[in-house]
């Protein structure tokens, strides 16, 4: 029968296409060949990225690319941005599966990125930066944030941020509470604020990573970065002491009514609005929002009352007060398959120019070689945030969403709101997550 034959032919060619498409990736590129030979031939190069279309990084890089094009006619930098992160990740993964990644692409230090690096798709950035004599200019924390567990570096940071707890002094006073000295003080503070009808903490639960940050805090104070590195491989469990403490702390935040009701469906801008309109007392946010929270564009009714504190410690804390989440944003990877003299030359030019151009836009550069420009309309907080960036300690708290394998991470993000809302118990949560991680974690990190 004719149709049947058509289908058979289609199926066979389908197999052939897939096999040739994803290929026998045997021809491993050399991630360490950082000095390709040949002439610089100007052409268009592309950067697939996930950053705000009119944000500091894109503005700076566009300017730099224009400067470079003047010296190298025919060169252009095509910036393809998808700011919405889930949509970006879908696009990136599709391109990776088809082996069509452009010259440059954004990626976090996830297990997926590590696989890409291990299969020789990405240039070794540590070697590249050292070869360009730029390595020592970078902040240690900015580079560390991009590293894989084995310490290798395959992504270039373009930002430097600190994450702090903004709070409303007036609301604290009204409820008669002080800044929490330890993490264990949080439930107490929340209850006092609640008693006065104030929403204690504004949380963007819809994007999921903000709540996952809270999950990372207790273990970070108890054991530094070790615990999550063990946990994600299935070598530590949530039922261990550190894990149980963290889960119980999360549940206690929920019981104390720390987050606004319905937090799990509140979006980013709505959560921020709760804080900036004086309805919520605490808001955990990063210096990327300095222009919204530390300039006079902030609502004048709360402007003078806003201050911030760092991640509180715990008793016998393994990490110090000045060690907390200090991310350097999503990193940029360099595709080793299309790495040629032009890409190298442009990168060298761009990365040298970048700190100055970026720093002048009122942002913290990932390097230490420029004085940041404080905008004229900044409140005193702005400068303090910048100074803190210079004083972050040795160990950075790693967000768990870049650490866990993606299946476990998705599940954790789904279970956490239920735990905090009291819809699953501490024990249920622990046994569910331990089972999921045991099934997926060891598999994902089998290579190391």
């Amino acid at each position: 029968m004719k149709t049947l034959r058509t289908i058979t032919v289609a199926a066979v060619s389908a197999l052939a296409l897939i096999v040739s498409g994803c290929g026998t990736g045997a021809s491993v590129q050399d991630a360490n060949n950082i000095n390709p030979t040949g002439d610089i031939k100007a052409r268009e190069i592309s950067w697939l990225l996930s950053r705000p279309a009119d944000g500091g990084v894109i503005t700076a890089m566009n300017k730099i690319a224009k400067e470079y094009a003047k010296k190298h006619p025919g060169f252009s930098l095509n910036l393809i941005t998808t700011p919405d992160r889930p949509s970006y990740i879908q696009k990136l993964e599709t391109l990776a599966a088809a082996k069509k990644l452009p010259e440059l692409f954004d990626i976090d230090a996830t297990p997926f990125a590590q696989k890409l690096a291990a299969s020789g798709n990405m240039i070794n950035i540590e070697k590249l930066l050292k070869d360009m004599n730029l390595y020592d200019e970078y902040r240690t924390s900015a580079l560390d944030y991009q590293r894989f567990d084995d310490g290798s570096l395959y992504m270039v940071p373009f930002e430097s941020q600190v994450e702090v707890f903004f709070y409303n002094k007036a609301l604290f006073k009204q409820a008669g509470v002080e800044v929490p000295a330890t993490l264990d003080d949080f439930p107490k503070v929340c209850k006092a604020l609640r008693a006065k009808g104030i929403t204690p903490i504004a949380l963007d639960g819809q994007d999921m990573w903000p709540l996952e940050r809270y999950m990372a805090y207790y273990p970070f104070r108890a054991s530094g970065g070790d615990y999550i590195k063990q946990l994600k491989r299935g070598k530590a469990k949530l039922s261990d002491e550190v894990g149980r403490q963290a889960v119980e702390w999360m549940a206690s935040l929920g019981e104390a009514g720390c987050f606004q009701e319905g937090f799990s469906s509140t979006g980013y801008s709505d959560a921020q609005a709760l804080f900036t309109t004086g309805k919520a007392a605490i808001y955990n946010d990063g210096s990327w929002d300095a222009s919204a929270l530390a300039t006079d564009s902030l609502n004048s009714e709360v402007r003078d009352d806003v201050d911030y504190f760092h991640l509180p410690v715990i008793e016998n804390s393994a990490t110090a007060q000045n060690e907390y989440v200090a991310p350097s944003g999503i990193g940029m990877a360099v595709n080793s398959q299309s790495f040629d003299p032009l890409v190298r030359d442009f990168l060298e030019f761009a990365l040298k120019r970048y700190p100055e151009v970026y720093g002048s836009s009122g942002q913290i550069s990932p390097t230490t070689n420029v004085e940041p420009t404080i905008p004229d309309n900044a409140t005193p907080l702005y400068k303090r945030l910048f100074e803190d960036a210079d004083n972050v300690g040795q160990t950075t708290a790693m967000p768990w969403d870049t650490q866990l394998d993606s299946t476990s991470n998705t599940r954790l993000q789904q279970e956490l709101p239920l735990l905090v809302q009291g819809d699953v118990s501490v024990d249920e949560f622990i046994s569910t997550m331990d089972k999921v991680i045991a099934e997926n974690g060891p598999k994902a990190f089998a290579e190391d």
Partner: protein
Amino acid sequence: MMLPSRSKKSVLIFLVPPLLFYGAGVLLPVVQSLVLSFFSWDGISDMKFVGFSNYVQMLSNDSVFWQAFGNSMIYLVICLTLQLGGALLVATLLLQITKGRDLIKTLYLLPAVISTVAIGFLFQRIYSVDPVGLLNRLLDVVGLSGLQQAWLSNPSTILAAVSFPEGWRFSGLYMLIIYAAFMAVPTELEEAAKLDGVNNWQMFSKIRFPYIRPVWITTTIMAVTYALRGFDIPYLLSNSRYGQLVTTYMYRTAFTNTNYGYASAMAVFIVIECLVAVGLIFVFMKRKVDE
């Protein structure tokens, strides 16, 4: 066949282009993903043939999958009630008024043109509790403040909350189709029935509805298959597994968890699920006709 004078060539000329277009644009990738469902693949490493183990895992060892399946069924019921029930109701009402039909019809279709991103955001606000959203405020006004809650956070209400907008936004579309079918009912039939003194309900159940039954079947199939493939609004509104459908779970498995083989197995499941649904519709509708 209707035309006595047709040649083999003419059949081919009309049939081959659409078949080729459809075969290359749809069948090929679908067959490819069917093939993928027997592999384990993360998009980077080499594909590994795993036989039926993706299916075994899905059917026997994945409680999240079965939860998603249950959710999809409830989602289907809600969407159908709003879309088909609502469409039938409004189309019937429209037949009975004389003024402003066109205007109402156009207005009724409006939600369908708004982008899903905006709809997602709007409903997030409508369901919100802090700040108080529209729904909770309405409940307060009618004295049901005891029912106020965070509709998108409470596990027992999430599914209904994500289903409603999808059902609501396309009810206008189905209304138009059904209304158009009603318009095609020959006026002689209706007038004859009127002379016989039938009431409104009899006019509907004995004259109009039987006449539009073929269109009704088509519309039902459309609504059912669209609902079983429903994705956008539930994906945008909720990350919770209480609001997760098979489709959104499949998408997350493929693109968040880069488990393409497993996601393909779920896609095959959805296809089979739809086939069964369409089969059931035909059987059910046919039995009704036979009665």
